[in-house]
């Protein structure tokens, strides 16, 4: 199984209003990953760039960024599955490496959401769902996730306090992650309904409130992958890609079978990844899951098999997903604290897991030298789902 490895990772701080262009933003994560791997561009034989293109003024950014990064004349291409773009980029790179076409590939995820004006951004948000059959109703991401939250509350007894506690867990780690955009501590009082001082309490798409939603951000992430031979030559601490799972689901809500069972792509992708890695949920020592909204983390617990369907809420009630719990989840603050620069998000999750397996996350480090970590990265409202499992030597 140890045929493709991560040999370098990098990430910028996720911020509001990065003071540079997308090429400069991309370079910041690239520099860190290349220095982490200890290689130069001559060691790299292809690159994959990942983002959601609606936020860029620059058309076809792959070639433009490859030039800026010094990755010319190596081939490059662009991969997109919205919020899971860089996990899809990793999958594409895995295929290109394991098939023998390439030896070492740079996967660079980026998003400068502030690149376009706020009005332009709002216009694009309106086109995020099926533009023919759903966007005309005035849909937006929080509303879609709220459909799931509502169904969970009605059937599974999920409460607003459960959701709040997901955000409070997130903030515990956001406070200590200097790459996160939201670093303030959050307490239950911040969610107090009717209190104008309680900034997390305002309704966004009921039952979801301000505190249930992650923030836009600018950022980039970089993952360098290599085949076994190169990984052994170039890297002291290769982290292996053990399993990859990916799935899709109908974009239309009218074609979703069951809102009380979470996102189907979570189950499907997890099943594939576990099978390929030859492990089960119990073997995972640390996980990053796609918590664009608090409800998404609860659904992720179930899709990944950390809890039975409908019982995800128990994990947060028992604090089982805290760093000291039985299955630490998003102990870097997750999307809720780090922010969600769409194309860079998956790469940031991967970086955290790689660093956890290398024992290099400082105050966020999970005890016991974790040997298996998992990344769960969703695109859209479960339109795409990607689960990737990593392990160390």
């Amino acid at each position: 199984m140890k045929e493709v490895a991560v040999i370098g990772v990098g990430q910028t701080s996720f911020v509001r209003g990065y003071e540079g262009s997308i090429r400069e933003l991309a370079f910041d994560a690239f520099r860190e990953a290349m220095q982490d791997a200890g290689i130069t561009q001559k060691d790299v034989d292809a690159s994959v760039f990942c983002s959601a293109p609606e936020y860029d003024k620059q058309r076809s950014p792959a070639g433009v960024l490859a030039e800026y990064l010094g990755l010319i004349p190596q081939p490059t291409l662009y991969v997109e599955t919205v919020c899971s773009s860089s996990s899809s980029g990793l999958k594409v790179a895995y295929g290109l490496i394991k098939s023998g076409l390439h030896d070492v590939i740079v996967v660079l995820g980026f998003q400068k959401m502030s690149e376009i004006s706020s009005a332009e951004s709002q216009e694009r948000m309106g086109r995020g769902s099926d533009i023919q059959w759903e966007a005309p109703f005035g849909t937006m991401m929080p509303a879609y996730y709220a459909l799931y939250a509502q169904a969970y509350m009605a059937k599974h007894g999920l409460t607003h306090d459960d959701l709040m506690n997901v955000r409070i867990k997130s903030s515990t780690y956001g406070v200590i992650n200097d790459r996160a955009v939201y670093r303030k501590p959050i307490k239950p009082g911040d969610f107090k309904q009717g209190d104008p001082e309680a900034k997390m309490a305002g309704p966004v798409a009921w039952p979801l409130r301000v505190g249930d939603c992650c923030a836009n951000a600018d950022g980039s992430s970089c993952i360098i992958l290599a085949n076994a031979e190169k990984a052994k030559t170039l890297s002291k601490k290769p982290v292996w890609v053990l399993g990859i799972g990916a799935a899709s689901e109908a974009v239309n809500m009218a074609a979703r079978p069951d809102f009380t069972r979470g996102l189907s792509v979570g189950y499907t992708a997890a099943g594939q990844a576990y099978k390929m890695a030859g492990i089960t949920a119990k073997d995972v020592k640390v996980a990053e899951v796609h918590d664009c909204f608090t409800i998404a983390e609860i659904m992720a617990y179930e899709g990944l098999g950390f809890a039975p369907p409908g019982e995800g809420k128990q994990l947060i009630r028992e604090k089982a997903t805290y760093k000291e719990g039985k299955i630490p989840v998003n102990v870097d603050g997750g999307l809720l604290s780090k922010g969600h620069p769409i194309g860079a998000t998956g790469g940031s999750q991967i970086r955290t897991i790689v660093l956890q397996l290398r024992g290099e996350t400082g105050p966020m480090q999970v005890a016991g030298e974790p040997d298996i970590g998992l990344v769960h990265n969703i695109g859209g409202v479960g339109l795409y789902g990607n689960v990737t499992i990593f392990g160390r030597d």
Partner: protein
Amino acid sequence: MGFEKFGRKSFAAITKTARFVDLLAEGKIEGTVCKDCGVKFFPPRADCAKCFSKNMDWFVMPEKGKLETFTTAYYAPLGFEADPPYTMGVVDFGNGLKLFARVAKEIKLEEVKVGMDVAIRPVKYDNGQLSFEVTKA
């Protein structure tokens, strides 16, 4: 052309299913059914994903179903700023037929419940746009 009249705000003008809007103007909410293999689709489609046929007929959607889930939006994307709060939900008619739409303003927020019996009806907005919405059964 023709589809730009669908919805509170339209993002798509050209589709082979533009007749949906003409039917809506006549007060009908219809899906498509494959003439060759009989599969029913809502939203309507011009092509059958099961047997690859292009031969599609229209069928009238059931009028009554259950509200499977819903949300109330307090913010809105560009072009919908005048509308919040508005409620949107999924109606399940059984047999795999579902529909996503706004819930009529006449229903009070606190009355909307998961599992409640609902009906659907065409609606015309004051700017002439056509849509359908969820109302009391």
